[in-house]
Every structure is written in C-alpha cells, then in structure tokens.
C-alpha cells in the first residue's frame, strides 16, 4: 500500500518536472542565446555581452521602452483609482441594475483583444476622431485595465473587517476623513495588488495597442513584433532575458515584503 503510494508520487513528480521543462525550456534557450556570439541569436557560438551593449545604444528600443513605461504608468494610476472607487461603490451600495453593471464591467475582460481593439479603432477614427498615439493607446489601456482593477479590489474587500469604518463614522469622523484615515489605509494592500497586476498587463499588451497605436507610436511589444517579422534577432533575446529577470526580481520582492509583513503582524 505504502509502496504503491510512493510509486504514484514518483510518477507525479516526473510529470510535474516535465511540465516545468516544457514551460521553461524555450525561455532558458533565449537566455542562453542572448550571450551567444551567433548573429542570428539562434545557436551557441561562444560567450559575448555585445548584444546587451547594442541594446543599450539602440534608440528605437529606448524610445519604445519610454513610451511603454509612460503608458503603463498613467494606466496604472488611473485604472487603479477607478477600480478602487468602483469596487467600493459596488460593495457598499445596493441599487437596481447592480448585477447588470457587474456583468457589463466583465465584458472588456472577456472580449477577445481583437474585438476590443478593432471596435476602439473604428470608434476613434470614424466617430470621435481621437488622434491615434498616446491618447488612443492610454484610453484603450484604461478601458481594459479598470475592470480588472475593480474585480481584484472587490475580491479583497470581501475579506475586510468593516467594523473599523463604522466605528470611525459612529465616533463622528466625516466620511472623507474616515476614508482617508481608516478605510484607505486598510485598502492599501488591495490597491497595491491591483497596481502590481495591472502594470504588466498594460506594459505587455500587444494586440489592442497594435490596433489603436497608428503610425509611429511603437511600444515595446510592438517593436518586438516588428523585429520578429525579420526573423530572430539577438536583441530580442536580450529583451526577453531582461523581462524574465525583472519579473523574477519583482516577484521575489513581493514575496519577501509579504513575509516580512506577516512576521511583523504576528509579533
């Protein structure tokens, strides 16, 4: 009986490792090739750092990166703000059509990006004539990121202790002051979580941005896509390597800050 269990565990372990290999092998490959001397970035020909040097001096990449950071930055601030007040409203208020509103907020999340992208493109160019570029991209990103923020924050609100807020109000604090001093600080972890999730969403979006960006507003994903058409390039390998590294560092930072927070609250 025990032995059988052991074997089952071993088999599961092998399957799990194979799954991880499948998920990681391609990524490890481009990380390795980013240090390879091969000019197509597709095989190993000795160690070099020259692609990283080239990346640093690549104006197109720098422009695209700056643009992506600006767009993601604005989107995170606006979408998280809208998400916070919407979640608060949905949680606290009872009104007719609430269910309908919740379903409507889900729409931009569940619609395929090509539908959202093409509908917004037609809307911007044919109806309200918003210039394609920063304005159209930022609006589009806010449209698909805000609903996400709503549900992330709403999810955390359901686990809150709302007694503090009631106490503050009962003791005569104004609603504004209550929000600022009691509810807000309590909401902060949820707001941070939403911002942390939305930033990569906005930064990494390709499809919707591609539709509404027009000519000349190349974001980083659009730059990567345009390079892929010409086949593999070592520069993409370096960008990919940096992406994975930054993701890992970001996650480690979140993990350790949470661990520290837990320790603090438990002592």
């Amino acid at each position, binding site marked *: 009986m025990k032995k059988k269990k052991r074997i089952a565990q071993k088999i599961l372990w092998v399957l799990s490792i194979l*799954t991880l290999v499948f998920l990681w092998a391609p990524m490890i490959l481009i990380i390795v090739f980013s240090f390879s001397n091969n000019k197509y970035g597709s095989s190993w020909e000795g160690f070099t750092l020259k692609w990283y040097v080239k990346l640093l001096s690549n104006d197109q990449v720098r422009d695209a990166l700056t643009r992506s950071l600006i767009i993601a930055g604005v989107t995170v601030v606006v979408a998280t703000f809208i998400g916070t007040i919407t979640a608060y409203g949905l949680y606290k208020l009872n009104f007719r059509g609430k269910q309908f509103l919740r379903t409507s907020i889900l729409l931009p999340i569940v619609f*395929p990006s090509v*539908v959202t992208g093409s509908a917004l493109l037609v809307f911007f160019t044919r109806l309200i004539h918003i210039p394609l570029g920063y304005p159209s991209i930022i609006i589009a990103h806010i449209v698909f990121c805000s609903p996400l923020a709503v*549900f992330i924050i709403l999810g955390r609100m359901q686990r809150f202790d709302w007694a503090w807020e009631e106490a503050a109000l009962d003791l005569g604090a104004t609603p504004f002051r209550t929000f600022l001093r009691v509810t807000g600080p309590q909401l902060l972890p949820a707001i941070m979580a939403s911002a942390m999730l939305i930033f990569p969403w906005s930064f990494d979006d390709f499809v919707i941005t591609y539709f509404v960006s027009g000519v000349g507003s190349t974001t980083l994903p659009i730059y*990567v896509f345009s390079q892929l058409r010409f086949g593999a390039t070592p520069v993409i390998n370096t960008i990919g390597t940096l992406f994975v590294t930054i993701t890992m560092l970001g996650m480690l930072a979140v993990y350790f800050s949470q661990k520290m927070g837990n320790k603090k609250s438990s002592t």
Partner: protein
Amino acid sequence: MPVLDEVPGSQTQAKKREKRKLALNMAAYLSPIIVIIVVFVFAPLAIILFFSFMKSGPYGSIIYTFTFENIIAMAGGGYGKIFLQSVYLAFQTNFLCILFGYPIAYYIARFGGKRKVLWIFMIIVPSWSSYLIRLYALKTLVGTKGTLNTVLINLGLISEPLQILYTNFAVTMALVFAWLPFMILPIYAALEGLDRSVLEAAADLGATPFRRFFRVTLPLTRGGLLAGSILVFIPTVGEWLVPSIFGGSKIMMAGSLVAHKFTQVGNIPQGSSLAIMLAATLVLILYLTIKWGGREALEKAL
C-alpha cells in the same frame, strides 16, 4: 387620526432622502466606470454592429446602405469553418491544459512540502513574462532551423528537419504553452482549499485511491477547473498571435481573421461583422457559464 397621517409623510421624506443619498453616492463612486463602459465599450460595439450591416466600397471606404451581405458572406463558407475550428482548438487546448495541469497542481498541493513556494514561483514567472517573447522563444526552439531540429540532426536521430511550424500540432502546442500556467494556478488553489478529512473519511470507508480521486477530489475541485477553463478558453477562441506565428497562412483562427480584415485588407464592414460574430460567440459561452454557476468562479479567477 392625525398621528397616523404624519407617519407615512415623514417616511416618504426619509425615503426620498435615502434615495437622494444613494444617487449622490452612485454618482461619486460609479460614474467613471459607467462612462467607460457606455462610451468606450458599448458605443464602439454599437458602431461595429452598425458597420457590419454597411456595404464595403473600394479602397476601404464604406458605402452607407443597409445590407446583409457581410454577415451572410462571413457566416458561410470558409469563414464559418474557421470559426468552428477556433472553438474546437480552444476546447482541445482547454482539455490538454487540464490533462497536463492537474498532475502538477496535485503534486504541488499534496507533496510540495517546503518547496511549495518554489514550485508556484516557477509556474507564475513564465505566466507573467512577456507573452510575445514567450511565443518567440518557443518558435526559436521548434522552428525549422530551431534548436530542437539542430540537436536532433546533430545526434543523427533525423536526417531532415521536422516540419513542426505551420501545423495544427504547432498551434495547439503554442496555445497550451501560453495558457497552461493559468490552468495550473486555480486548480492548485482549489486543491489547497480541499478539506483533507473528507478524503480520510472516504479512505476509512474503503474507497480505493482511484475511486477516491474521481468521486471526491475531482468533484470538489470543480470550481478551480471551471475558473481555469474560463481563463484558458476565452482568450484562446479569439487568439491572433499564436495562429499568425505558429500557423502562418495555413491555420487561421477567428481572431486572426478579424485582425486580417482590419489591419491588412482594411475592409471595415467585413471585419466588423467578423468581430461581432466573435463577440457574440463569446457572450453566448459566457452566458452559459454564468448559468451553470460560473459567475463566482469567473470573478474569483480574476
């Protein structure tokens, strides 16, 4: 009696005040999202719905006469087939993600021990790294001149490179590669939330491990499976990048058709009708999921 007369009066006044307060609160908290939904979601959808009934003129122009020809052309023939193929591919991807995702989720939840965090970390990192770059990385591995072929040829296992790209297999593999983490995580969460005493009870009552899994564990993790399926199925149906990178011109999906009509052909009426059909397909699927009790799973999945 005068007292009775007063009470209903003050009640309606209190009610009115309540109503006004509610309206004010709604305006304060909910107006931004309502504006976003109405102006930037409903209105654009209405516009493409309108355009899908317009005639397409030469050079991407639109002739404003009412016609059903786009809808008929897009629904029938080759396009309809591509739609069905997309739905089929999405189901297949979903099934394969469960097939590959469940064992690893189960292993981590049951036997992960001290390394649990590391395992989860190894699954989350790929899912958060750039989607486009991950697809590019996979292409580097399995392309005609890719690493896999080079290694196999050098080992003498094959004499000619395997043609993996531009096949159904390649598209399916890329879809599973892209979306598998989003299936593993909800299943893992569901398994973690499982009450172990239920399993012990089943064992005490003489259930075999096999039976225990299919009669207890699997049904109790249905929520996780549903959440994962929503996260995987919905984006897969409208996928554009995967078919365009791994399917080339040979394997198209509904999403790539829409993108093709808008960005390459510039035929707005035809593109619009395809987009509307794609949206309608997903709304139908979403409706069915919510009806089967998936709303909570859907909101939780986020």
